[in-house]
């Protein structure tokens, strides 16, 4: 399918795809409004055809209430730059992992005051019960002397931590 699509892509279609990617870079996560859907690694594909532009997204957490909001925001952003009609579909396989957050996205998280996830979530499902996240650096003072207060925070994707050096509480984007 990919090869077939690539063969029929005209320069005009490629230009529309580039415009779509540029528009997607402005669509922010409503719950972490410094990260775009591109920083988060949510965009699995953009395809322009004679029938319009198709965007494939991948949902983050199973119950993330932002999933529908993000899909609507993506459609609006593309319509706003004159790309119509727009089709947004969700694809669950392969499942999204926080490992897909870009290096730039991790920097943005840290500057926003949220400790970014480690890049090793892929094997996590099979891990033993006792294994805990370690060495979560405080996003304010960079100290590794921190502790987890609760694995569940203000949104599905974040845990509550506390820095024992600067004594400030902070959130950690959970590796998943």
């Amino acid at each position, binding site marked *: 399918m990919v090869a077939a699509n690539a063969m029929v892509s005209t320069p005009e279609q490629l230009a529309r795809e580039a415009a779509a990617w540029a528009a997607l870079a402005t669509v922010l996560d409503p719950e972490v409004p410094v990260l775009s859907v591109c920083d988060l690694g949510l965009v699995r594909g953009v395809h322009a055809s004679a029938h319009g532009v198709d965007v494939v997204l991948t949902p983050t957490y*199973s119950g993330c209430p932002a999933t529908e909001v993000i899909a609507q925001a993506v459609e609006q952003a593309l319509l706003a730059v004159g790309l119509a009609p727009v089709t947004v579909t969700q694809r669950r396989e392969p499942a999204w992992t926080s490992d897909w957050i870009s290096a730039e996205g991790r920097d943005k998280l840290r500057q926003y005051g949220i400790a970014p996830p480690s890049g090793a979530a892929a094997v996590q499902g099979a891990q033993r019960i006792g294994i805990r996240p370690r060495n979560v650096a405080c996003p304010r003072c960079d100290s590794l002397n921190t502790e987890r207060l*609760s*694995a*569940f925070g203000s949104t*599905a994707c974040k845990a509550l931590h506390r820095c024992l050096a600067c004594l400030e509480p902070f959130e950690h984007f959970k590796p998943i």
Partner: protein
Amino acid sequence: MAAALAGGSIALELTHPLRYVLRLADTALIHAQRLAEWCGHGPVLEEDIALTNMALDLLGQARALLTHAAHLHNGVQGGGLDEDQLAYLRNEADFFNLTLVEQPLRKSSAHAPGGDFADTVLRNFLLATWFKAVWMGLSSSTDVELRGIAAKAVKEARYHQQHAGDWVVRLGDGTPESARRLQAALARAWPYTAEMFAGDAVDEAASSTGLGPARASLRGAWLSEVQEVFAPALLPVPADTPFLSTGTQGRHSEHMGFILAELQSLQRQFPGGRW
């Protein structure tokens, strides 16, 4: 379209794969509904947030599974079933969750005690450990959609298991009072765990076609992780009992009707209502 019954209910043509997916979907849905009863009532703020976070994960898993069940159903029969119709318009006998998840959790009823936090902690741990084994088994499913749902859900289940496991140890190895109440909660929950590993034609078909694991095959992994937490919690693994609950066959305890009355009330009163 699915056949319409009196009162706006839908009737399903139940194939083995549809039943298999609905068992998982309904177990996640009703467990989420029970955990959500804690919203605003948690013993401490962090725990209130944790319980509702876990309920939200489970609800998301249930939505994905119900959407997939609707696709399976529409594929065989045509018509436009969706997740909402499956959640809100099925009658009690067409729900196939484990009986354990429908037992009272926070609120008491005339026939069962509720309200002890130890019940929540223990049930959450037993089920998260079970779900983790289910999701790992589904990670090699021949059904690509189930594989995708499972790959995400297994990591969520692991967080749930770890959190609930911490509480099991804290209560079990806590004060004499907390240990006594946790043991009482275990005595109440344990007989219902047999259904987690019961087998039937639906399970055999899922296993032989590669759709997903038969429940009976999950017991070894489940028990070893349960023991890993029960040991530091000073909690003995109870003896098995001959009791076998039948929620996965559509035959429920007296509590199920009350859950559905609450869960479905809006769509039953205002069919097709949206906001």
